[in-house]
């Protein structure tokens, strides 16, 4: 260890003000990608859709009516993984304790959450677009011959779905402040509660299911209602996250 503690050889000049919002968004993206878990989620998100499409193409013999359904369905597998990306960006900080450093550097918690939201939305959209694009490429190259009408819109809607689900995960993660609880919660709702609702009240389930909303948007049906459903899920999660985070003490 440097026994003689010397002053810095040159004065250390820090920024006179806090980081700008774009800089904070960039930092949050780097934070998400700076851990193995974050990179694993992104890789899984990018590869699930094309892998599922490969398996579907390999096991399918019949003709295909429209490419939109397969692209969206396989794309939603990747979108589901992006729920975890959002959770890790918020709840992950509380679970590891690094939230202390985050709020010491930027005490304005709403600004931090805004930066995290923008970061996971951008990452989620990017990963989902790549995933859907790769899945489409697999379908086009190796699948049954089918006009690719509407595929562009489908890929775009999967991208929007990726952003929305990542934001949803971030909001729930911020509200609960605990990674296992948040992950359990979001997947329990999406893979447990909604399918149960589909069994007993299918019309309600179709109306509130955010995954169904993404499919409807890709197919160009029920646009307004589908957009409202997605926005509502994201808004409720983010508002809950902001309200709880602003009041929670960092112990």
């Amino acid at each position, binding site marked *: 260890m*440097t026994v003689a503690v010397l002053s810095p050889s040159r004065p250390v000049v820090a*920024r*006179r003000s806090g980081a700008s919002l774009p800089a904070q968004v960039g930092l949050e993206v780097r934070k998400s990608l700076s851990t193995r878990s974050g990179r694993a989620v992104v890789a899984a998100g990018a590869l699930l859709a094309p892998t599922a499409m490969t398996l579907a193409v390999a096991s399918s013999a019949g003709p295909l009516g429209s490419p939109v359904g397969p692209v969206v369905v396989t794309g939603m597998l990747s979108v589901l993984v992006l729920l975890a990306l959002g959770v890790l960006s918020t709840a992950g*900080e509380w679970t*590891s304790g690094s939230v202390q*450093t985050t709020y*010491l*550097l930027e005490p304005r918690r709403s600004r931090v959450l805004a930066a995290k939201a923008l970061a996971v939305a951008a990452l989620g959209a990017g990963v989902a677009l790549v995933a859907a694009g790769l899945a489409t490429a697999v379908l086009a190259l190796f699948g049954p011959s089918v006009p690719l009408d509407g595929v562009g819109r489908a890929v775009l809607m999967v991208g929007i779905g990726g952003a929305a689900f990542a934001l949803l995960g971030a909001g729930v993660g911020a509200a609960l402040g605990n990674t296992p609880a948040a992950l359990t919660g979001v997947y329990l709702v999406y893979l447990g509660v909604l399918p149960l609702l589909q069994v007993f009240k299918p019309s309600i389930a179709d109306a509130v299911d955010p995954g169904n909303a993404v499919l409807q948007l890709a197919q160009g049906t029920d646009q307004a209602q589908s957009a409202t459903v997605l926005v509502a899920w994201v808004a409720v999660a983010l508002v809950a996250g902001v309200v709880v985070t602003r009041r929670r003490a960092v112990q």
Partner: protein
Amino acid sequence: MITVTGLTKQYGGRTVVDDVSFTLEPGTVTGFLGPNGAGKTTTMRMVAGLVPATRGSALVDGRPYAALPNPGAVLGTLLDAAAVHPGRTGRTHLRLIADALGVPAARVDEVLELVDLAAAGRRRIKGYSLGMRQRLGIAAALLADPPVLMFDEPANGLDPEGIRWMRSLLRDHAARGGTVLLSSHLLGEVEHTVDRLLVIGGGRIVADGPVASLLGTDGVSVRAVDPAGLARALTVAGHAVAPGTDGELVVSGASPAEVGAVAAAGGLALTDLRPLQRGLEDVFFSLTAA
């Protein structure tokens, strides 16, 4: 500078910090002592804006922490060395903080070198020992070379060389005009490091002042060639004399000058003469016992 006025924190009906006030001036190292659960960490977290105060205020450089434009560049903190993501490398952790502060990337290498973690910088924090995490936390606090440092139990996990290094670091920082607040359970270490003591017990400040005045003096320890003769002379002069545990004489309520004058008047040669001070441990327990 840190100025705390009437700071209070209540959780339901329980008051954990009760009307705490103090001002820390530049150029000083202040020790913040108290038993477990006395309110030290909660007070520090309120100063740093991590825990909202129920009443009162805490100002850093004249402003609430959250109102500082780049707070990490004004107040460097080490509150919990374990509060880092274990999946990141030490270097990545510091790079992210440096970018948030607007500090050049080269400074990361400087602080890693300073805390002797340059070789471990590319390893994941998960594999760090407690002492290494502590040094990483100190490195993070020093990135922007802030004027104010606030460390909670900084010596945890440090070996004797590390403790000595940290003492030099904090004294050097104060010598350059910085302000240091550190809490510690290592009373012996605090006694050698700080200029001033803040003692908290049950959420309230029970002592606040320079180390020397708080510890006080409690008489004189003296050795002489003729101890019996010296004892007689001191008794005749009106001093209370008692034998010490190691062959010395303990003269209560007297100063070294008074004892020296008695010895000189009687032609008695002295071999050792020193004031007796109360130990910090005794002071700590007497102040926090209630």
